[in-house]
């Protein structure tokens, strides 16, 4: 037992009594039960601590403001509304994504339907394409071609080539890295 010369409880044991009686050895407990001096010492300190707590409480102000909590019903309604909105938004987005994906897979993957055309249709298409080709070559009717002089286009081109030779003909006249004009200089 941790006690002084006269077998009284030491400070350590008295403090341990105040903290937790169950932690104190049985012998110390028995001593405390029969020793008024030790009991008095323990009770004095105990009273001091109780008084300390009581005075602290007494010398504290009282709260003036009431606690205001967020409105539960409003929070719930807003929460529900928010959940509902969020859920429907997410649903709509998911549906759009699903449609786009299925559209692509269904219509892209499927082979194109063979177009069965009749002979008449084929002939008509060929005639139409011939007309288009003619128009691409000469958009103007023959009468207008005569007026504009474009009916003599081939002759004119030869004539122009004679007057103004094409650029590649100049290359053939290049000798030793210098043109004829440069040689003269």
């Amino acid at each position, binding site marked *: 037992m941790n006690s002084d010369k006269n077998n009284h409880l030491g400070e350590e044991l008295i403090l341990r009594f105040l903290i937790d009686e169950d932690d104190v050895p049985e012998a110390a407990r028995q001593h405390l039960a029969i020793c008024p001096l030790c009991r008095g010492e323990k009770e004095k300190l105990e009273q001091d601590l109780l008084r300390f707590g009581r005075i602290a409480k007494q*010398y504290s102000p009282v709260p003036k403001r009431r*606690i205001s909590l967020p409105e539960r019903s409003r929070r719930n309604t807003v929460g529900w509304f928010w959940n509902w909105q969020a859920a429907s938004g997410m649903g709509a987005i998911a549906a759009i994504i699903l449609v786009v994906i299925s559209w692509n897979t269904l219509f892209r993957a499927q082979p194109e339907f063979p177009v069965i055309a009749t002979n008449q249709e084929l002939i008509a298409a060929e005639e139409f394409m011939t007309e288009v080709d003619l128009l691409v070559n000469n958009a103007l009717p023959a009468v207008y071609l005569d007026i504009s002089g474009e009916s003599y286009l081939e002759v004119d081109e030869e004539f122009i080539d004679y007057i103004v030779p094409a650029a590649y003909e100049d290359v053939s006249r290049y000798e030793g890295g210098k043109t004829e004009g440069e040689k003269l200089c």
Partner: protein
Amino acid sequence: MTQQDQRPHKGRTRDTLSHMKSLVERAGGGEGEAFDQLVDMFQGDIFRMVYYRTRSQMDAEDITQDVFVQAYKNISRLNSPEQFRSWLFSIAVNRVRDFHRKNKFRGLFGLYTEGEEERESSAGRNDDDDALDTMTKKDFWKQVEGLLDKLSKMEREVFMLRFMDDLGIKEIAGVLKKQESTVKTHLYRALEKFRREPSMRQLLREERG
């Protein structure tokens, strides 16, 4: 005075505990009135707990408000309704820590908060206090400050939770998330220092006289 203020200093009866448990369960299920009753039960305790650590009524009211709002938002997640009080105190301890951290940060920039001004001018003062009361209170809190300054951070917290906030060892261990043996060790050291503080004991004797 709130209902909690009239509660006997030591021990909560089994009825009170079971009543609290049922209120917590009802509040967790979304019953606003049950939470209001819990606020009535514990507002005083939490306010004082914060006041002891901030020594400013304004800050104590703000932090108490935050503590209850946080508890209100998370009460459905509390697994053990019987630990509601400890849980509330652990929220408060964290809030007070945040508050001191913020103040320290402000202090770095030389910013003087309204709370600090209030602390300087009115320690524990109530509106109906006369000059003598104010002086006595101021003196008491000065002595408390002197005592608490001699304790380490952990010793101070454990001592305050035990003897000022009236929490049991188990509750303190829950609040601080420490082993009970650790709590007891810190409490022992704090008590040793308390016992050797003549000014505090003198003050308590004067109050008794």
